[in-house]
């Protein structure tokens, strides 16, 4: 029974996603087709003066830029259904390949930051919720609020100054050392280039989850069941481990999955600061240089990414929370 309702729930969600993505694509397409940035100029760059009118028309024809937007959208949509996102103008390769390659670099970065910030933020939230009003609780709250006001890219720059320029412990940028053949890049190189961006994202990511967990912890501690537990003689850490964690963990995990949107945004900035060759950096380049197919592909990808985060959050609630799980049983 539970499987049936769960199945229905997932199908429903996916239908919504398809409609949402279609709307998003249409919106995005109409937005970018009105852009004053000339894709041909963006493609050719400084050599624009040397390009004759005839050559320009040829390029436009090659990219299909001479057709009206509606037709271009139709063609793009049809190709999309066949899994073809077109070719990236700046990388001169299929968009799907570019995204696929950079996906792995980004997923390692984001995954690492996601886990670290989640764990750290959860612990900080619990402590500051328990120590509310005491100096440690206040300090953590103050720190998190300050972090929430910190520009991600500035934090990245500060870490860069400290660890790369002053201490010289870590390299300054790029996902791999410059001037080294990609075959010669070692795992160690990759890791040293990963540390700073991951650190930046982890530090910034702590704030949200910690503040949320803190509030939840305070609510739980003020709840009727904690009152009754105290009336039965439970106190202090016993209360925390027996009832507190149990009731705070679920919303915290859910929140962490629902925060994919901020995570991706943070990754865009961190990757830019550290020239880390991930999806975020590709998004910036595609935008700056007018690479329409790549930009569209990345918009689509980020929407799907956010959607899966939210879907997982919903699913966890349905599968883990007995109130939803066993309620589904009886329906």
């Amino acid at each position, binding site marked *: 029974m539970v499987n049936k309702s769960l199945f229905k729930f997932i199908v429903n969600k996916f239908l919504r996603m398809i409609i949402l993505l279609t709307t998003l694509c249409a919106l995005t397409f109409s937005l970018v087709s009105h852009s004053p*940035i000339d894709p041909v100029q963006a493609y050719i760059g400084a050599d624009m003066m040397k390009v004759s009118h005839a050559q320009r028309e040829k390029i436009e024809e090659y990219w299909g830029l001479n057709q009206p937007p509606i037709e271009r959208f139709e063609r793009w949509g049809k190709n999309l259904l066949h899994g073809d996102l077109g070719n990236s103008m700046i990388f001169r390769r299929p968009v799907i390949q570019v995204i696929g390659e950079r996906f792995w670099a980004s997923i390692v970065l984001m995954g690492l930051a996601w886990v670290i910030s989640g764990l750290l933020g959860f612990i900080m939230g619990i402590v500051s919720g328990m120590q509310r009003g005491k100096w440690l609780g206040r300090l953590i709250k103050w720190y998190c609020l*300050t972090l929430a006001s910190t520009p991600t890219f*500035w934090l990245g*720059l500060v870490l860069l100054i400290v660890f790369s320029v002053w201490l010289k412990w870590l390299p300054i940028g790029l996902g791999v050392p410059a001037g080294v053949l990609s075959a010669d890049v070692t795992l160690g190189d990759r890791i040293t280039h990963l540390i700073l961006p991951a650190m930046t994202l982890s530090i910034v990511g702590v704030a949200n989850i910690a503040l949320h967990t803190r509030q939840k912890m305070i609510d739980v501690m003020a709840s009727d069941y904690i009152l009754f537990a105290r009336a039965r003689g439970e106190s202090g850490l016993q209360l925390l481990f027996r009832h507190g964690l149990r009731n705070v963990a679920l919303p915290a995990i859910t929140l962490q999955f629902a925060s994919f949107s*901020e995570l*991706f945004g943070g990754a865009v900035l961190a990757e830019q600061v550290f020239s880390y060759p991930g999806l975020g950096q590709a*998004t910036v380049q595609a935008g*700056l240089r007018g690479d329409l197919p790549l930009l569209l592909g990345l918009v689509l990808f980020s*929407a799907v990414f956010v959607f899966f985060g939210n879907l997982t959050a919903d699913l966890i609630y349905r599968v883990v929370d007995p109130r939803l799980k066993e309620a589904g049983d009886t329906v």
Partner: protein
Amino acid sequence: MNQLNHALSLEEKPRKIIRFNRRQSTLITILSGLALLTAIIAASFLMSDEAIKTHFEARNLSPSWQHFFGTDWLGRDMFTRTVKGLSLSIGIGLLASTVSVIVALILGMAAATLGKTVDTLISWLVDVFMGLPHLVALILIAFALGSGAKGVIIGVACTHWPNLTRIIRAEVLQLRTSQFVQVSRHMGKSRIWIAVQHLLPHLLPQFFVGLVLLFPHAILHEASITFLGFGLSPHQPAIGVILSESMNYLSVGMWWLAFFPGLSLLVVVRVFDMVGDNLRLMFDPHSAHE
């Protein structure tokens, strides 16, 4: 009388001195926050542009009493650049968040009062905007409108309304079931009349607090998008521009180019956040049980 404190609970003992001062301290925080922000804007107008012109004799100076934040590779005073950049950011942030809050107010009220179709449509729009990472949406809009102040303002305004729209919609739905609104409806008042006479006054606090709390986000996103190269043009004294330029000079040890401007931005954003939080406490004291 033998006064024993209630030491059984997990929480702190009542702090009399702090509690009695809460009202004053809240007011002081709000006023000093506003004073700081006004000072920054005033200073940026009073400072002459002389200091941010090229001075080759004063290039690459580290922070000193003469140049608090040092100078850059063209000899421009970083303190002046920062203050002017902050003032620009505050202006753009204010404009963008005001637009955003007005959009949220209109859409939120429309969703809650104009029937099911409108509600579905607006909720759908909220979902679409929330389905995309903020920054990606910003890049997209800035890309479509071309970079410059226009793109940034519209971009930030367009990406920040969904959350507040949801809050206002929920608030209005709740207000609509309240007695005085029900009575008005039975008396045959029009929807618009009810909205203006009854709903708006209740939503005004929400509106202002929402505005002040949106503000820090707007400034941060303006700086981010400018930093990435989509926002304000490199000729304008924006914090995003300063930080983006500084990246080329960090490896040679000119840390002050990035450190102080970014820190100032952090302080301004944090002050706005504090002002917003304290305003909310004034309007809704139930959130103040601490």
